[in-house]
């Protein structure tokens, strides 16, 4: 492999890193005169470039190549594209949302770009140390972003809580890594996978390592019982950052968990799928039941995203290489659908927050009269979250359920199905407020151009993935093939 090849393989990461530095420098040079608009523009251009580079690699049929402990394979490219798109949407929406709310907008956009870089590194890591570094890199950018409103106590609380949980979770994960290293003398995922057997004492050690590692991954994915930070952090963080944490950052947790477990612990597959299955039940049930009582939309969506994490992890819990529905495919399809759906829902929350300063359910009363477009988009996103066909969310649920049923985990399937009805209850409650409850306020809601564009992209993707799912499924099955072939 010559230097040029390596440059090309790492082009998404290089573009992201360069963009981050340019954004900070330009913002400094401009002396913060235009409220971050230039910085945002450069960030978006850079993300666009990185997305093109990622897709070029993805569609060039790149097979697994390792460069500096990073795997450039369809699996990592899929998650890179996901991260770049969601950060792009978040930045697009932030241009108007963050204006006047902070003096340091250049750094804000740069940190978001670096967060995308961190995810790109984490999802490609083929080495336990790189896994740890990637996740910590992502955490550090997220801590700062969550507490970005320095005058706002809630935002401070969000950042501090996130930091304290994250620091502990990171340390626990590191302990898990050290167990695997102790047992095999290697930090390379594939080598660990080859050397780590499931015999006798080593199996117990392996189970301990799985649980310890899950503290790190589950923290990112906000899976119960590693979810406690989520409601407060989601509520206090600037809403665009909440959107980011609940999508791209969450997806990174699942991506890393998937690769590490499949590649490094293939001999313990029965154990970690069982553990993930129980976490799925806990997450779905707890998330949905607590969400029922929420009236603050950001908290409601936080619990909803904990419940969604439960559905998503079903894909890994039902891993079934060689089956019609291998599980990982379901995980990826679900995450793709969920990304646009959940960001979309948070975009509407941002629009309302900007208009009324409130994130309470009451602020959504009668929205259909004041802002029909917003109300219709929100309905679309909520129905997709509820998994109603023919929207994107339905296909996510379908593929995940299919994997669960194929593995004959019928209790799990039944619990998930019943949970979907509970979730429909609180999603529908928001629809009810928007359509059927009269509001005292009659002022029409105006939505900034960037936010509208992000909304339109998300909404159209939710429809397209639902109605024309086929190309996405084909792409995803290819991405999955690679990691399954290399790992299991």
């Amino acid at each position, binding site marked *: 492999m010559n230097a040029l090849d390596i440059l090309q393989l790492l082009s998404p990461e290089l573009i992201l890193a360069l963009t981050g530095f340019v954004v900070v420098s330009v913002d400094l040079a401009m002396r913060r005169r235009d409220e971050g608009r230039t910085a945002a523009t450069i960030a978006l251009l850079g993300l666009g470039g990185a997305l093109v580079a990622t897709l070029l690699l993805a569609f060039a049929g790149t097979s697994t190549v390792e460069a500096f402990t990073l795997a450039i394979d369809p699996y990592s490219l899929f998650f890179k594209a996901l991260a770049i798109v969601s950060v792009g949407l978040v930045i697009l929406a932030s241009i108007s949302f963050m204006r006047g709310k902070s003096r340091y907008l250049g750094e804000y956009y740069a940190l978001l770009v670096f967060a995308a870089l961190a995810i790109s590194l984490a999802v490609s890591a083929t080495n336990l140390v790189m896994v740890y570094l990637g996740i910590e890199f992502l955490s550090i950018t997220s801590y700062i972003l969550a507490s970005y409103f320095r005058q706002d106590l809630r935002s401070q609380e969000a950042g501090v809580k996130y930091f304290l949980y994250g620091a502990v979770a990171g340390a626990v994960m590191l302990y898990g890594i050290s167990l695997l290293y102790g047992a095999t003398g290697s930090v390379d995922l594939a080598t660990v996978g080859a050397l780590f057997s499931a015999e006798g004492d080593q199996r117990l050690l392996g189970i301990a390592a799985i649980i310890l590692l899950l503290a790190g991954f589950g923290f990112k994915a906000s899976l119960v019982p590693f979810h406690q930070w989520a409601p407060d952090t989601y509520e206090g963080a600037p809403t665009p950052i909440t959107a980011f944490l609940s999508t791209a950052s969450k997806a990174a947790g699942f991506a890393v968990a998937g690769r590490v477990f499949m590649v490094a612990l293939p001999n313990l597959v029965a154990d970690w799928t069982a553990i993930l299955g129980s976490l799925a039940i806990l997450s779905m049930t707890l998330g949905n039941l607590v969400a029922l009582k929420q009236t603050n939309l950001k908290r409601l969506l936080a619990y909803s995203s904990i419940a969604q994490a439960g559905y998503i992890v079903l894909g890994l819990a039902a891993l079934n290489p060689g089956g019609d529905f291998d599980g990982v495919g379901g995980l990826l399809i679900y995450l793709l659908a969920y990304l646009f759906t959940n960001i979309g829902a948070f975009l509407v929350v941002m629009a309302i927050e900007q208009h009324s300063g409130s994130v309470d359910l009451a602020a959504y009363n009668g929205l259909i009269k004041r802002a029909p477009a917003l109300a219709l988009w929100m309905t679309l996103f909520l129905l997709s979250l509820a998994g109603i066909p023919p929207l994107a969310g339905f296909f996510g649920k379908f593929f995940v359920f299919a994997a669960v049923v194929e593995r004959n985990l019928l209790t799990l399937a039944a619990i998930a199905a019943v949970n979907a009805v509970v979730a*429909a209850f609180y999603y529908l409650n928001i629809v009810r407020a928007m359509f059927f409850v009269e509001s005292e306020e009659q002022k029409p809601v105006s939505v900034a151009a960037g936010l509208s564009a992000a909304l339109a992209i998300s909404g159209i993707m939710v429809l397209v993935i639902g109605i024309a*799912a086929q190309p996405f499924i084909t792409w995803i099955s290819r991405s999955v093939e690679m990691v399954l072939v290399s790992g299991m």
Partner: protein
Amino acid sequence: MDLTTFPLLSLILWLPVLGALALFLFADARSIRVTALVVTLLDFAASLLLLPRWTPDGSMHYQEVLAWAAGLDFRYHLGVDGISLWLVLLTTLLGPIVVLFSWRNVTENVRSFFFLLLIQQAGMLGVFLSLDLILFFIFWEFTLIPMYFLIGQWGSGRRVYAATKFFLYTMAGSALMLVVILLLYFQTGSFNWLTLKEAGLDRTLQFWGFLTFALAFAIKVPMFPFHTWLPDAHVEAPTAGSVILAGVLLKMGVYGFLRFCLPLFPQATAIFLPWIAGLAIVGILYGSLTALVQKDVKSLVAYSSIAHLGFVMLGVASMNEQGLSGAVLQSVNHGLSTGALFLMVGMIYDRRHTRLLAEFGGLWRQMPVYSALFMVVVMASVGLPGLNGFVGEFTILLGAFRVNPLWAALGTLGVILAAWYLLAAVRGLLHGPLDNPANQHLADLDRREVLVLAPLVLLFFLIGLFPALFFDKITPAVELLLRDVGPVIGR
């Protein structure tokens, strides 16, 4: 145009969707109404094209198959047989009727209203036409959304409560259906109905499959004790919504039993048939007795639906040629006559904004045309010989009698009760002195309203006098079903 290769079913299915999108081309309410009417009339005309070339052999006609996702046996597969044919025609017939009925009395958000009506129609047609279980499930779940908004936005009184209850209740019913559909797939490698019914599923799967599907369908029908969503939804829905709910949506449940539960899970059917019969009879008696004490005439009609659907399910539970054919025909009959009843209640409500029986009386003198038509509709619903209801109920009772005379006896009791509560409605509305001053200036039906009811009344007579026209298409399909399922059940 060559009708053998032309995708007629797709045309019928997607025409309302295209029409719904076309509504956005117009700004004024009148153009929107005209477009909706033209589209639903065209759709009805298109569905009539199914009839001339129909070969009554009980098989699936006009099949269309399109592969969907590579590697997955999930297809866009449509087809229609003697069981679904009349339900499709019922759906497309009620389309223009409810559009015409809503012509004047829907004045708010006209475009949204007709948009929802049209996509609701497409969703219901999709349920009747799908031969792929995933496709069926997609349409089945989708039909919840437009109806939720129709009830919630244009309904009366506790409309939001009724809409939410309708949505959650029916969604809960079908939650596990997807899991079972997937189980069927992993046992047989197919989502295709034609493959699945030949597959011979194992006993345990049949048992759980039947229970899960039956729960979804029993809630939709609704069978006692899963009926509690119905009075709320029917009473609070706008008239057009009630007509569609009673006319078509409930039939999706009956259709589900006939199309999926019986042929796919015959062994389980044998176990559960007595239960279905029992619940059907309880439904007949409970619905009738509750209808008897209603003060609101719309509630009365709503409870009468529970009783009538009890009859239909009694036919299903009989599992013989008469019972099943009667169930299919009576489903259509109920759609026509209860649809007409809801329309007529709506017409009186539009004038007086009340539906309480106590507010009325003596309308014979003030509204002779209305009263005459109301009598005909009631007679059709009661089952007067010569009209459609008689044919359906009689055939069902005949089928039930051959299985268990007690079933038939209890069913007959329901017929008597039906006459009682419906004639009570007639007495309350039409007879007696015209003593309420508010009723003394009521206008009789105008031409549009008569036009809305005319096709329904014509069909009452057509089905009542020439039932063979309908049975000769239903019976072969029923015979085919019995040929497969009958031996397992011992009928």
